[in-house]
């Protein structure tokens, strides 16, 4: 009998989740569409005045991307929990946090990355100027994995409950507030021609911390959620 190596186990998990996302690519498109539509609604509500739209562009894109990610979180562990795959994952002779990190990475690749691709489109529709757009993309590039990691911990905690969507939103949004503040701060600073590196640096530091701690916390939370 030959045991599996950690690297091949990680590759197996990552490949599986990406393959699944590809097989259900229709579902993958939905967060993107959702974000696009929410972003479309605001001009209707606020009027088409270009200057106002440019002023709120960064904030709207950030909050919209966040809401879309929020709605997609449900698919992170629930399907695996319901069909028993999660149990199999936990019984594998590999460090669970590492395997979960792979799952989170796959989730980020399949939900947040498409959102990042359309973020310039949304920002463009709001007439955000190019220098601020660059900062917005950078902020999103750091903020979305951070949110994915934080979200994963909370999703793991709520995995055993029935109606977790709203509950998740409630628990996640307070955590998002600092992320949104820093990301939006950077974009606004860039829009006004001020230095914007500091808030981005803070976000980066938080991301580094989350990269280490979140998978551990996630594994612990899942063990607790399944132990009932």
């Amino acid at each position: 009998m030959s045991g599996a190596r950690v690297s091949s186990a990680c590759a197996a998990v990552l490949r599986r989740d990406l393959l699944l996302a590809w097989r259900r690519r229709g579902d993958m498109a939905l967060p993107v569409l959702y974000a696009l539509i929410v972003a479309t609604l605001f001009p209707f509500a606020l009027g088409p005045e270009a200057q106002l739209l440019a002023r709120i562009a960064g904030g709207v894109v950030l909050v919209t991307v966040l809401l879309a990610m929020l709605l997609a979180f449900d698919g992170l562990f629930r399907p695996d929990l319901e069909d028993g795959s999660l149990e199999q994952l936990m019984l594998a002779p590999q460090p669970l946090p590492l395997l979960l990190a792979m799952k989170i990475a796959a989730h980020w690749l399949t939900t947040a990355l498409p959102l990042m691709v359309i973020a310039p489109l949304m920002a463009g529709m709001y007439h955000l100027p190019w220098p601020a757009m660059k900062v917005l993309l950078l902020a999103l590039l750091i903020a979305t994995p951070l949110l994915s990691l934080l979200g994963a911990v909370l999703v793991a905690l709520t995995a055993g409950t029935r109606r977790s969507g709203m509950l998740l939103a409630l628990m996640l949004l307070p955590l998002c507030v600092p992320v949104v503040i820093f990301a939006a701060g950077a974009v606004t600073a860039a829009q006004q021609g001020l230095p914007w590196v500091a808030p981005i640096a803070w976000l980066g530091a938080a991301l580094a911390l989350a990269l280490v701690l979140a998978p551990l916390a996630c594994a612990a939370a899942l063990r607790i959620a399944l132990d009932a």
Partner: protein
Amino acid sequence: MTDTSAALLEARGLTFLRRDEPVFGPVDFALRAGEVALIEGDNGSGKTTLMRVLTGLLHADEGSLLLYGEPLSVERASGELAFLGHQLGLKLELSPLENLRVAAGLFGQRKGVSPASALASVGLAGYEHEPVRRLSAGQKKRAALARLLLIPAALWLLDEPYANLDREGIALVNRQVERHAHEGGAVLVTSHGAVTFLNGAYRRIALAS
């Protein structure tokens, strides 16, 4: 490394409480390599709960559980045991072959067995590339059984493996269980009190409801 003379799995006064009421009473047994045991009980008597305690996913409130003579934990247990529960752990969008490849990546694979050959030996040749969603319930069960053949675990925990299977499938499970015991593994099988499909006189562990 591990004390091979000790029982593969041993339970001493194992009890699981839900709201301070025991789901199953104190259970004692020891399972050695090469043994097969049957856990019997009515609906709701706690068979599935016991199985999940044995995997280490649930924590028993009283009593102790030893794997190779050492206290069992998820980390210790993982890799040593293969669990087949009510939920099969198959992804409906992937094919049986892809599902088995994931399992092989996570658990490693037995020498001389490949995902394709495991599928063939449970009678799923020709269905390797069909999405699991389109398989019948019995075929899904067979795909899950193929995982047992593929991964190198010594202890099999089978929760109602006969459900959804036709006669031929039942015989297949029995053959598989016997071969595994013969090769030095150990198997725990649950079943409703009324009907038992395992032939041979195996040890019975009764759960009162």
